[in-house]
């Protein structure tokens, strides 16, 4: 027997692992973003204020939603990926640089010609500026002139914008990649250029982004025309500035480090010192940004700060083989989920902002009151009914009971509950029972006796609705269980001994006949905790069922995972318990 139990317990381990896996998959791969209702995220986040954006980021960080689901392949990212995303965001930026003009309201070819002529003047000024030996006065004059001339961004009739979904995804990606892309961002911020073909009216969409180090010679020649892949290219100043600006802005968010200790724990002195250091560094980073229309000095200053900081802390971003492997497997939602599970941490509820176990602890009491009462009543009533039906088999009484139970079995409990609530409470009909709720008095202000009466009074209708469904099932079990034994030899022997019918039935038959229905008790374990979704919903009892519904409506996925996990583990244990009790009660069954 012990061996059997041990074997079963061992078999439970893989089953449990698979259950946790399945729960994870269900919740994470379901369409729709977890916690959508709670965070300010959503499709309209493109024009969110910076504040909401930041709180959305923190939310994602807290619930590990910025991590990939199963495997983390972010070490494969390279600078081109980051540039692509930045370009998408830059192309969508509505704020214009000074001197940036958008040729709207002109036909495509007209705008091409016009802006080509226009931008030639712009590039002329650029060339003069870049020429060696320009004195300060000329430089200032040229810069003013350049501002007046402006650069025409070639936008025919309707500006070409990337689709909103793509922009949203690009922003999310840049945010989620976090620390991984900091070295790339540094490179982009300091040496990114956007090239367009050097010709009559080339358009932005025809251009490409590059780093200076990819150019022949590693810099832009004085003439401003770059020879690359057998074609000549020019710098598109607006896109270049915008992408660099975005890279610096991103850096100030992505390079931030998280504090080493979670909220609510007391840090050791060492940790506190480290935390202080991190906070200081983060604050400094927040200052190393510039507005889009800042002058070249401001930009250079911020950039110098970043490059200096990066050279100091380059070690943080160096990867070894082992750390890469660790990152691939461990820096994922899945791994974090397992890690938390191993520490019996089911996470934090998004809705209640408290640990899931605490939230469940608040609710399961109500469910257990309800379930215990109804289960007790159901057994109390169903066993005599089942015995009566079996003893009087094929009589009028048996048929009557059968029909009665059948009707009970087929009546939907939400229908009965709704009717009872309407007819028997103040809502519409007789004012006998309270409409809903678990209690309507403050336990501190009335005597314990009154309080208990109040709860009982509230429980009458819900318990009734729960009981009659269980009753229908249990009585049938009881009847068939007794019918199985009532024809056996030992019962005939007992009768032949001259025992009275009562003794035969109650002492001999019932003891064996009730084995199946008693072992059913084990499987009711999850129902005890899980409660009944519909009854709790109708009678507004704050038990587990109602918690489940509200968590689903709220996409509070940690709570959903918690409830699914707990109830499935309880089912596992319940099945084991009922098997064991079967063997304990019935000596004919052995598992050896």
């Amino acid at each position, binding site marked *: 027997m012990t061996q059997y139990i041990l074997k079963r317990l061992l078999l439970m381990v893989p089953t449990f692992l698979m259950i946790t896996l399945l729960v994870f998959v269900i919740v994470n791969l*379901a369409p729709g973003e977890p916690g959508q209702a709670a965070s300010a995220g959503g499709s309209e986040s493109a024009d969110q204020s910076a504040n909401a954006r930041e709180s959305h980021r923190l939310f994602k960080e807290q619930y590990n939603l910025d991590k990939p689901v199963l495997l983390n392949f972010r070490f494969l990212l390279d600078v081109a990926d980051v540039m692509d995303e930045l370009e998408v965001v830059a192309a969508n930026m509505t704020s214009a640089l000074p001197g940036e003009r958008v040729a709207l309201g002109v036909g495509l070819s007209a705008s091409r010609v016009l802006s080509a002529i226009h931008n030639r003047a712009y590039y002329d000024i650029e060339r003069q500026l870049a020429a060696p030996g320009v004195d300060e006065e000329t430089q200032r004059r040229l810069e003013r002139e350049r501002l007046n001339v402006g650069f025409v961004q070639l936008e025919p009739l309707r500006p070409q914008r990337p689709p909103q979904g793509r922009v949203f995804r690009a922003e999310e990606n840049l945010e989620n990649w976090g620390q991984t892309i900091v070295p790339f961002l540094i490179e982009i911020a300091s040496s990114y250029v956007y090239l367009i073909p050097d010709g009559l009216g080339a358009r932005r969409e025809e251009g490409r982004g590059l780093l200076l180090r990819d150019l022949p010679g590693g810099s832009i020649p004085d003439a401003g025309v770059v020879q690359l892949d057998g074609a000549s290219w020019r710098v598109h100043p607006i896109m270049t500035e915008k992408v660099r600006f975005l890279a610096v802005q991103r850096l100030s968010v992505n390079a931030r480090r998280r504090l080493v200790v979670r909220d609510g724990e007391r840090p050791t002195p060492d940790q506190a010192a480290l935390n202080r250091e991190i906070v200081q560094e983060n604050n400094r980073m927040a200052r190393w940004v510039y507005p889009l229309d800042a002058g070249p000095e401001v930009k250079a200053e911020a950039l110098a700060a970043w490059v200096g900081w990066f050279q100091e802390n380059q070690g943080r971003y160096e990867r070894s083989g082992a750390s890469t492997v660790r990152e691939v497997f461990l820096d994922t939602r899945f791994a974090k989920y397992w890690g938390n599970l191993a520490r019996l941490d089911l996470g934090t509820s998004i809705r209640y902002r408290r640990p899931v176990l605490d939230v469940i602890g608040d609710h399961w009491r109500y469910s257990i009151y309800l379930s215990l009462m109804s289960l007790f009543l159901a057994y109390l009533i169903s066993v005599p009914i089942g015995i009566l039906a079996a003893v009087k088999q094929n009589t009028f009484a048996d048929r009557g009971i059968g029909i009665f139970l059948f009707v009970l079995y*087929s009546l939907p409990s*939400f229908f009965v509950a*709704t*009717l009872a609530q309407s007819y028997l409470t103040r809502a519409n009909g007789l004012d006998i029972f309270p409409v809903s709720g678990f209690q309507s008095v403050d336990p501190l202000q009335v005597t314990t006796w009154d309080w208990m009466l109040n709860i009982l009074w509230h429980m009458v209708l819900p318990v009734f609705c729960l009981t009659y469904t269980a009753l229908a099932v249990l009585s049938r079990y009881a009847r068939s269980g007794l019918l199985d034994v009532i024809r056996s030899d030992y019962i005939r022997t007992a009768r032949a001994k001259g025992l009275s019918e009562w003794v035969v039935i109650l002492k001999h038959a019932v003891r064996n006949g009730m084995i199946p229905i008693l072992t059913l008790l084990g499987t009711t374990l999850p129902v005890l905790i899980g409660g009944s979704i519909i009854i709790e919903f109708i009678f507004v009892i704050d038990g587990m069922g109602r918690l*489940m519904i509200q968590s689903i409506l709220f996409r509070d996925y940690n709570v959903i995972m918690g409830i*699914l996990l707990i109830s499935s583990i309880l*089912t596992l244990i319940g099945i084991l318990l009922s098997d064991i009790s079967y063997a304990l009660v019935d000596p004919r069954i052995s598992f050896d």
Partner: protein
Amino acid sequence: MAATATKPKRTYATYWSIVWEQFRKQLSSYVALWIIGLLFAIAIYAPVVALGLPFLWSDETGLSSPWLHALLLNRNVFESSIDLFFNLLLVLSPFVLGSWCFARRRWVEAVSVAEVQAGARAFRRFLGTWFLIILALFVAVVLSSPRSALLDYRALAFAGDGVWGVFPPLRINYGDTLHGVEGPGIHHLLGVDNAGRDIFVRLLYGTRVSLSIGVIAVGIYITIGTVLGSLAGYFGGRVDLVVVRIIEIFLCFPSFFLILTFIGFLDRPSILWVMVIIGLVGWTQPARLVRGEFLRLRNIDFVSAARACGLRPTRIIFRHILPNALGPVLVNATFGVASAVLVESSLSFLGFGDPTLPSWGRILSYGRDTGDLGMMLIAGMAIFVTVSVFNLAGEGIRDALDPKLRK
């Protein structure tokens, strides 16, 4: 054909004919089966009773049938795929019924091979005729399509003015909303709900929702369960181990929690999703049943004989063992329909699922919200009747299949 008078009566009985005889002897289950048939008839023929479009319509452009047109082509009246499915059944039902009667007369009474062949020939001719009729019908529908799908025929007919139309008894679509609340009366048999929709018509069309959920969801899970269960039972070993583990894992989840979680995560849960999800969650029970039957049957002589003949495993599984293992599955499926109907109405009662569909659970919850007892009673009784007739039929099949209970 003088021989027909002395045609020998068939003396053998197949397994299913015995089961059918047994089933017919149980009065309650037999009646329940008829009620199920009635429910399906209501679901299929609901547009004959209630639709806001005329069967026949005559105006200056000529004669047309907006009703027939709407059944298959007008997405303004019937927007869900369930409706299209049932409408298709409605259009095809004379064909199906006719063929069934025909096949029954020809084949059940045939005793010789020649007769069967003659019957098959005639049946093919018969099919061809019907095919032509249906084709003609469709062409007629398309050609006689009314001027506009959005025309308000009721108002036009009311105004008179040289047009006339033959309407269904109730000139109401289930999605129609009226202004103001009306009590029960001659126009609205059970009154209208707080959104101004006719309750009786919605109840009528709700049959479609419940029955299709029941049948299709159960169809999905019976299919999955049967295939997995037969593989596990036939091949045993590792396959069996894996399938049994998966079943065990699924058994650990409270199924209603699981269904609710899936449905809750969908952005716009259509009725098809509800079917698929119930189907994906419920397959473990038939899988266990089929596996058990296969374990019992796979070493019985007729299977060994089939194997000795060198038949492929797929043929042995599906042609030799599976038909013998289907009894318990049939019982499970019938009870399954009842519980699927219950699950769907619970879901829509809780407010999950497609809000536009006329589901009974939603009608019940409307009645609850507005305190309309009649509405609650009528929707609840509809659910109760459907659930109980399927349960009754299931019990009847179970008893009919049990050789110990043969009468």
